[in-house]
């Protein structure tokens, strides 16, 4: 076993002495978490609202009060002329303009059909549709309230409510995604680069011509990145719980176990890559483009899988991160027990076994 430990020690030297890479490896999860958590927020909070209210009656006042009372909106301006609408958007502060019709309250009372216009800035369609959705939610609530007061039979309105994430906080969605991305990147990319580097410097030739067994070489190469990934996993979970306040509802042990399984999977994927490429550059490209793109696009991290064309849904089924992210979402946010994620875990285990078998079989005891 001595050669093995000596090898692992050597690998750690390589990592510790390349300070810049190590900083990136350990800092990347922190930066990504904070970036997703605060900067690229996909939630609506304190959006500035301008109102044009020629009617100025009790109903419009109520609606304005309700908008102001919500966390999402802030009444910033009362417009006196519809011509100002364009200008307030150009100034850039206003995210929503609410335009009431003249005689809003009487229209509502008599025809049960008052017109109200919600105008948003279409240059950011995602944000715009979120804003309208929230605003519509508030308006619907107001409508019910008004209907109750006026003792008019209320119309059935669709109830808008988000399951498991009542505030619509986006952190809930991206934490599992970032976990999948970081672990995949560090394990697969870094292991493949570390192995290929030995090919480039010619040391792999010496190691192969030595009595050391290939399986020892492989395990020794993987060990440090396994440790590094575990550190990253802890970082992500701590950040998510204490900084972004995303609670871990489910069983922590189960969550860690599933993550370790995924780490193994990513490591063996990295090994497989190192078998087929011969330069660090190629290893980086293959793992970067070949792994990152599917993780970003097909795992449900950015685009919901349910809304993909069927063919892409099929393709996404072979992206390991998809199953991992799904499992983490269920455990972490819904707090389900093992049996509820058995399918995802089973698929991940199967993929891991397959990858390890293929890459071990392909790892050459000789040069090609």
């Amino acid at each position, binding site marked *: 076993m001595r050669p093995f430990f000596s090898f692992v020690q050597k690998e750690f030297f390589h990592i510790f002495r390349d300070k810049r890479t190590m900083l990136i490896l350990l800092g990347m999860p922190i930066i990504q978490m904070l970036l997703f958590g605060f900067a690229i927020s996909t939630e609506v909070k304190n959006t500035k609202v301008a109102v044009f209210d020629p009617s100025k009656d009790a109903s419009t006042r109520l609606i304005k009060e309700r908008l102001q009372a919500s966390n999402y909106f802030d009444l910033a301006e009362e417009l006196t002329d519809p011509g100002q609408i364009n200008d307030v958007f150009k100034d850039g502060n206003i995210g929503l303009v609410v335009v009431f019709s003249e005689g809003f309250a009487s229209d509502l009372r008599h025809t049960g059909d008052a017109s109200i216009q919600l105008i948003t800035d279409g240059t950011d369609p995602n944000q715009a549709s979120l804003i309208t959705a929230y605003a519509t939610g508030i308006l619907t609530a107001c409508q019910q309230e008004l209907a109750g007061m006026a003792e008019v039979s209320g119309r059935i309105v669709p109830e808008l409510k988000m399951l498991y994430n009542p505030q619509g906080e986006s952190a809930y969605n991206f934490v599992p995604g970032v976990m999948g991305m970081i672990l995949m990147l560090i394990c697969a990319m870094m292991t493949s680069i570390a192995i290929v580097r030995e090919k480039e410097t010619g040391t792999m030739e*010496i190691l192969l011509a030595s009595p050391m067994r290939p399986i020892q070489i492989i395990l020794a190469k993987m060990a440090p990145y396994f440790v590094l990934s575990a550190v990253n996993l802890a970082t992500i979970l701590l950040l998510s719980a204490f900084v972004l306040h995303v609670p871990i509802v489910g069983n922590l042990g189960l969550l860690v176990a599933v993550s370790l399984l995924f780490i193994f999977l990513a490591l063996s994927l990295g090994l497989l890559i190192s078998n087929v490429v011969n330069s660090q550059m190629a290893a980086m490209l293959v793992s970067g483009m070949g792994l990152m793109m599917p993780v970003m696009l097909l795992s449900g991290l950015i685009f919901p899988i349910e809304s993909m064309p069927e063919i892409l849904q099929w393709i996404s089924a072979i992206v390991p991160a998809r199953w991992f992210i799904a499992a983490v979402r269920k455990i972490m946010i819904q707090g389900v027990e093992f049996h509820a994620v058995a399918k995802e875990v089973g698929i991940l285990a199967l993929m891991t076994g397959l990858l390890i078998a293929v890459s071990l079989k392909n790892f050459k005891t*000789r040069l090609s």
Partner: protein
Amino acid sequence: MKAIYTEQLSKAYGRVQALDAVSFEVEPGEIYGIIGPDGAGKTTLFRILTTLMLADRGKAAVEGLDVVKDFKAIRRIIGYMPGHFSLYQDLTVEENLRFFATVFGTTIEANYRLIEDIYRQIEPFRQRRAGKLSGGMKQKLALCCALIHQPKVLFLDEPTTGVDPVSRKEFWEMLVRLKAQGISILVSTPYMDEAKLCDRIALMQGGRFLRVDTPPGIVGSFPYPLWAVQSKDMHRLLSDLRGYPHLRSSYSFGESYHVVLKPEGTPGDLKEYLSGEGHKEIEVGQIIPTVEDCFMLMLNEKEVL
């Protein structure tokens, strides 16, 4: 038992025949040099003998062990320095050595005696990272790493390429000392002047061994008298020599041209011809050929064939 034995070893990459039916033997305790330019097939031969590559055809054995069947046993008894190889640049001298010792299941201390001579020269820098060593120092460290497990056979693939003449000389002095300790050494080099330090040499080109002999044997077999020719205007001399009708070959060789004449030509006649071309201070003297002369002659005759 031979240290190395091969029989009709062949290997092709696609249409390129890298090794073409190579058969040779290395005696125990011998320094066997393979001399040939880049692309002659040296590296392929080394990789097959160090069990890193399979030959298409033919047999090979190291210390009586078959390179295919007994590859695990061979890996325990050989030391290998691949061509263009660099150690771990980010590890120190000592860490590199310690690492390779443990890979081979031994320690620096257990085999220090063997590397002592060489290691003493780099020991002052043992805390320095290998990437910061000069070319000559790197070669010494690499040799130490290849020796640390007391191999029976040492494979050195172009260990001195790109290394300055002084470090090269020191390196060869070390090889001679290792040989005295009973280690068989197979070494390749593109530098012809290193050939004379080998017990036997093989001249290699295009995947074939053109000749195998001791350095004196190779030199002694040069079939023609060889003449060193000089004059005051060395530049012009080369083209004028080529104009001489009885010339077989002429190559620049340091300060003079090495010239082989056809049977009709004589040194006196050549001198006369050159002074007719206006050369001054002409000197023509017979010299003993070098390995390089022999190699060039063989390359030329191969082309003629």
